[in-house]
Structure formats: structure tokens, C-alpha cells
């Protein structure tokens, strides 16, 4: 098994496109963010996908989704319950260690219980010049849409006051265009994963997406545009045993995805907030940008926490997952459930029930990730269901 794996890795490396690693280095080193900072741009960290980055971008600041890089959380564990998701603990850990001192502000959103209190805990212990929590309605309705649109406008004005710059509606429309282009490019790259011989593996896809949160979208778009054709022309990956869909929430540990793929699986789709869930769903480019943003962010099926009145919120989420699986022709599902994740804690049971026709491997994740612990189970799963 080991020699076969080395051989698979060698083949894949031979035809490897350098773009994923290039972008991933932005995430690991924050080199781009620091470059922007040096050039005088303000850096605003966001605590959830549902924070409309377009607003921050239109005000000349750099939005960056916060994902903690700390591998252990000894400081955060003194401030937060130890059983909480590692996503929250790692962000706070980075903040407490001073690793996020480059931030000029933090923006949260009321998208789940953890993220609401993470915002409060973070701003309580790690002081920032600017902080704001966007009030996101839990229910999707006409009234909620109107309210959310007003709330986004209020946020835009609060931030513009802080940044000492005037809010400009046309600039916001321009930012929406840039973000839609980003989404279109991501869709194209993501589409390259679903071929019989996928042009890009799951670990590389994750690296690209992590790079995207650490770069201004216009810079990201340029890098991807430059590489897209060569990616399309690449040979593609043939030597896999099982096509896998990855399900989860704020997961971003590339090493685990690499382990899964090194054992013979190919990750052809996902519904992670940090990958496919991050870019899915376009914003209408109309005359009322706040309404358009409200509509997109309130109705995004990839997200998990808002519901139509009287319609079960899990239905949308499951619908999104099913569509991704159908598109990618995945044969099996690996669920990466952070043991403290409330969203997946609630929804896992229904997702597994709805997708019971597929072989499912459920892995409970905690930080620090113990790869050895997962290896046996992943290997057995791939052997059981792979070609």
C-alpha cells in the first residue's frame, strides 16, 4: 500500500500546477495581506462567510476571512469552553498570541450561537480599533430581507465613518462585479474537479480557496485567469479508487485532505464553508446593491442557518449537497464533523439519513488533528468501496 501511495503521489506531483501552492502560501504566510497593509490599506477580518465582503472591499479596505493557524489552543482554552469547535478556538488563539495584530477591525455576524459569542469574546479579549456585528435575520422572509438590507447599509456607513471615507454606491456595484467574477472563476475551477479524470484534486482546490481569502479578489482573479487554460489542458488524475464528496463546515486542514487522497480517493466535490460554500451563489447586479447583497447572503443554500418561514432549514442544505454530489458523480461521502460544531451537530443526523444510499464515513475532528488516528479508517473505507 505504501509503495503504491508514493508512486501515486509522484505521478500527481509530476503534472502538478503550481498555482494552488502559490495561493496557499498567501494563506499560510499572510504575505499578500501584509503587502496591502504596507501599501496603506486597512485590513478587516471577518468571522463568517455570511459577512458581505463586497461592502468592505468597496470602502477600499481588504476583507479577509479569519481562520486560525494555531495548531494548539492553550490560551484560548482558558477563555472558551474546551469542547467548543476548533474553528472558534483557533481564531481566538491567534488573536491572543498577537498573530492577528495586522487587523484594523473585525466584523462578525449573527449566523450561529458560536459565531455571535466568538465575536463578543474576541472583541472582549483582543481589542480592535473597529468592530461590528451584523444582525442577520434567522428567517428568510420579505420583512427579513428588507431589514437585512437596511442593516447592511448601516454597517457600510459605520465602517465608512471609521475608515474616514465616503460610502459610494457605484463603488459597491463595482465590488459586487469583482466578487461575481471571482465566483464565476471559482465555479470554472471547481468544474474541473468533476471530470472522469479530474484536473484538480481536493487538497489543491482547498489551497486555492484558502488563498482566495488571503488576497484581494481582483488579484486572485488575475492569478486564476492566467492559470486557468493550463489547468484545463492538464492531463487529469486517473489513478484513483474512489470518488468522494467531503461534507462539513469550517474545515480547512489541507493535511487531512492530502491524507485522504494519498490513500487512493479523489475528492471531487464538497460543501465546506471554506471551499465550495464560500463562493457559491451570485449577487444580482441591479440598481439596489444592498438589496441584492441581502438577497444573496440570506438565501444562500450552501449556508446552513437561515430558513424560509415554515420550511425546514435543513432541506436547502441537503438539496445543495445532493446537487453537488450529482454534479461530481461522487460514489461516497466523507463527513468531517468538528466535534464542537453546532451546525453539523444539529444537521448530521438528517444529512446521513437523507444520503443513506451512499457509503458514508463520519470522522469527528478536533484540534490538533491526529492524522494517524484517521488513517486506518479512511484506508478501510476506500478499500471497502473503491474500485
Amino acid at each position, binding site marked *: 500500500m505504501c509503495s503504491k501511495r508514493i508512486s501515486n503521489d509522484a505521478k500527481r506531483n509530476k503534472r502538478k500546477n503550481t498555482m494552488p501552492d502559490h495561493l496557499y502560501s498567501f494563506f499560510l504566510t499572510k504575505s499578500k495581506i501584509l503587502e496591502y497593509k504596507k501599501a496603506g490599506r486597512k485590513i478587516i477580518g471577518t468571522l463568517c462567510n455570511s459577512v458581505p465582503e463586497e461592502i468592505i472591499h468597496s470602502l477600499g479596505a481588504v476583507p479577509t476571512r479569519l481562520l486560525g493557524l494555531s495548531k494548539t489552543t492553550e490560551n484560548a482554552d*482558558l*477563555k*472558551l*469552553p474546551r*469542547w*467548543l469547535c476548533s474553528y472558534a478556538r483557533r481564531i481566538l488563539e491567534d488573536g491572543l498570541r498577537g498573530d492577528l495584530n495586522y487587523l484594523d477591525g473585525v466584523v462578525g455576524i*449573527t449566523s*450561529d*450561537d*458560536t459565531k*455571535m*459569542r*466568538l*465575536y*463578543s*469574546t474576541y*472583541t*472582549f*479579549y483582543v481589542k480592535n480599533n473597529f468592530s461590528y*456585528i451584523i*444582525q442577520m*435575520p*434567522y*428567517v428568510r*422572509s420579505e*420583512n*427579513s430581507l428588507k*431589514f437585512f438590507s*437596511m*442593516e447592511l447599509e*448601516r454597517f457600510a456607513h459605520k465602517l465608512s465613518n471609521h475608515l474616514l471615507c465616503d460610502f459610494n454606491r457605484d463603488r459597491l456595484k463595482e465590488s459586487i462585479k469583482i466578487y461575481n467574477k471571482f465566483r464565476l472563476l471559482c465555479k470554472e475551477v471547481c468544474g474541473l474537479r468533476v471530470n472522469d479524470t479530474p484536473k484538480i484534486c481536493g487538497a489543491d482546490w482547498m489551497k486555492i480557496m484558502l488563498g482566495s481569502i488571503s488576497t484581494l479578489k481582483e488579484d486572485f482573479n488575475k492569478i486564476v485567469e492566467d492559470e486557468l487554460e493550463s489547468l484545463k489542458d492538464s492531463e487529469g488524475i486517473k489513478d484513483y479508487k474512489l470518488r468522494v464528496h467531503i461534507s462539513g463546515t469550517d474545515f480547512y486542514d489541507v493535511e487531512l485532505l492530502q491524507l485522504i487522497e494519498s490513500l487512493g480517493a479523489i475528492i471531487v466535490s464538497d460543501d465546506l464553508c471554506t471551499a465550495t460554500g464560500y463562493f457559491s451563489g451570485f449577487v444580482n447586479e441591479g440598481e439596489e446593491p444592498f438589496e441584492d447583497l441581502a438577497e444573496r447572503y440570506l438565501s444562500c443554500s450552501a449556508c446552513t*442557518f437561515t*430558513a424560509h*418561514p*415554515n420550511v*425546514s*432549514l*435543513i432541506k436547502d442544505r441537503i438539496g445543495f449537497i445532493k446537487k453537488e454530489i450529482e454534479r461530481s458523480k461522487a460514489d461516497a461521502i466523507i463527513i468531517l*464533523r468538528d*466535534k*464542537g*460544531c*453546532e451546525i*453539523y*451537530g*444539529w444537521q*448530521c*443526523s*438528517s444529512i*446521513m*439519513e437523507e444520503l443513506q444510499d451512499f457509503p458514508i464515513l*463520519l470522522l469527528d475532528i478536533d484540534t490538533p488533528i491526529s492524522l494517524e488516528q484517521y488513517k486506518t479508517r479512511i484506508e478501510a473505507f476506500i478499500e471497502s468501496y473503491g474500485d
Partner: protein
Amino acid sequence: MAINMKMQEWNPLGYKALYKELFKRHLARQEELLKRGRPVGWFFSFHPSELIYVFDLVSAFPEQYSAYCAARGSSTDLIDVSLSMGYGHFLCDYFKTTIGSIVKPEKATPPTMPKPDFIIGSRGLCIAHCEMADVFARFNKVPFYIVNYPYWTRYMIGRHDGFTKVPEKIDETYFEYCVESLKGLIDFLEGITGEKMSEDKFKDVFRVAEDTSKLLVEIIHLMMSKPTPGSQREICDLVFVAFFALGSTYAYDFAREAYNLIRDKVKNGVGVVPNERYRLLTFGIMPWHSLTLYEYCERLGATFPVNLYVNESVHLVEADKPFESMVRRTIHFTNADYEMIYDVVEGVKEADLDGAILFENTGCRVTSMIIKPLADILEEELGIPSLIIEAPQCDPRIMSLDRAKMQIEAFLETLK
């Protein structure tokens, strides 16, 4: 036990008989309404309970039922059922217990909750309540409605009073959004009952709620007297009155009697124990499986003049401002940015506290994530230390009572 910690005589307020009468009348009402074929709704804490009485609804409360199962020993089996279904271990105990009772009613303590015709979720405390409403509605195949509220911040409401929950202001945009959401709830209930809401009854119920709420606010104020007049063993059940029965005449009758009892004890200078040695603040959902812990502490001379969780359940109703009152119910530090903790701590300064015992409810993000900032603010503002005990509210397996007692004894020895 430390040598100098002798168990003392314990003199509770005598609320036990009052609660018995309260529940008797509550259940009699339920029975009568069920006979009349009135719809059954499931509700959560911080919902506008007044509407239950305006619409003559049969009400059941998953949180209260879970606490009931925890006190009677069935919650652990029910929690295991939920885990076997694939629900996360670190979810709210109330959810895990309730879903277990829905799927395996034979494992639940009777009488189980009546099957709902509808479910009302509320964002007045947590999103977990909305998620619970969603899941329970799906399992019972009934409609549900979610009442939306913001996560309050200083710029929206200014400072607030930790007892009445009256804020300096409520920003108009957010207030109007809440009112719209509440009007939507009324529409929903009109649809469920097939009846237009009676304006007269609405006014009457809110008048009763106002009178009751004033008494409840007084009770939690009087608890801060010296010596502490009552036991948390009995005060902790005030949450049932404040969360679920506010608006009923039996809640008013209870509150009136309860107020008289505590007022008389304060007037006569009688404490829950003869020799009060430490005055403690407590917070966190009470560990319903181990409520004797409060009595144990009190007998050691450590009384609890302040229970912030109980205080959060109480708010002042103003009958001439019914919608504002319903919105105010959600203005509490557990549904707000942490700056609001300072308002609450300011309010309990007069209690002259020596320390705090805080319960970290595993699986409850709302109460658990706030614990350490609260402990830090108590230290900063009042100069008092805190003991944090991991205590899921319905799962005694995580919290050993003997271990908790040892922790508390050691903590008390460190106090002045």
C-alpha cells in the same frame, strides 16, 4: 469536609407549597383546554408567554420537560438516544433529552409532553431554540414559527437595567423589526386557532403580566438583602414562572404569595441559615439533576443572594407598552454583546458579594461562552473570585456531585 465548615440549620422561604399549587393550577388549565380541543404549542424560554393566555393555548415546554426528566433520572437514557441518532454530543442537553423523548417515549418520565399542533421558536436567547423548533416540528410533522430578535449591542440600546431589562433606548430599526416579527407570530396563532385575537383579552393578560413582573423584580431584589433570605433551591424555579407562565392568574397568585414570604423574612432579618459566612453569586443553567448542591452550600454558610440566570428570566412588563415589553424580554446579557455584563454587575454591587460559583453548561454555547468573561468582569469590578464547575444541566454523568462539593469546599476556604 473542612473542620470549620459545620452544617447549619436550613430555613427556606417555604416556596415549595406555592410551586405545588402553581403546577396544580397550570396542569388543571391544560387539562381543561385539552378537553375543549384547544391547540397545543411547544414554546421555549424568552418567548412572549402572554400570548399563550391571550389565545387559550395548551402550552408545553421542552426545556422544562427536560429539567423534569433530569430531576427524575431519565435524561441520561434520552441523551444517549439522541447520540445514537447522530446528533452531536456537544449540543444543548434540552434538545438531546427532548428528541430522545420524542423518538423513545417509553424511556421518558411520564407524563410526557402533549403532542404539539405547532411549535414556536425564538431568537430571544439562542439560535439553538430555532434549530430545536425546526427539528421538533419535522419529527412531529407540524408547522413552526420563528420570532426574530437581534443580538443586542450597546449602540442599539445603550445601558440597561439588569433587573427590569429596561434599556436607555431601543434603536427604531431594530425595534420595528422585532415588532413586525411579533405581529407575524400573532397572525400565525390566529391561523392556528382560526380566531381573531381578542384585543380586550390581550390587554387583560398584559395587565396581569405587569403586576406579576413587578413582584418578580421585587423578589430578586429582596434576595440581595442581608442576610440572604431564601435558598436557591427554591428561587431557581422562578424561571418557570417568569419564562413560561407570565400572563396567567396563577403566576400572579404565586408571585404575590412568594413576595409576601420573602418580604416578611427580610423585615424580620431572618436568613436561610443562621450564620451567613459567604455571599455568592451564581450563574449558568441550574444542574437540574443535582439541585441539592445549593442546599449543601447554604448549610455550609455560603448563600446565594444573586442568581444571574434567574435574574435574566425576569423582566418588567408595562401593560400600556405590550410590544415593547415583549421585545424587552430579550434584552438580557445572555443575548447581548459582553459590554452588557458590566450593567448587570453594576446592579448587583449592593449584594456585597464574596465570590461566584458559575456553571459551565456543556453544549450550551450561550451560557458557557460567557462564563469566563463574566468571571473576569466580576474580578475586575467587584474584586471577587469565581469557581467554574462543568455542569451540563441534564447529564449528571459529566458532573459528579461529590466532586462538585469538594471543589466548592476548597473554593470557600480560599475566600476571606
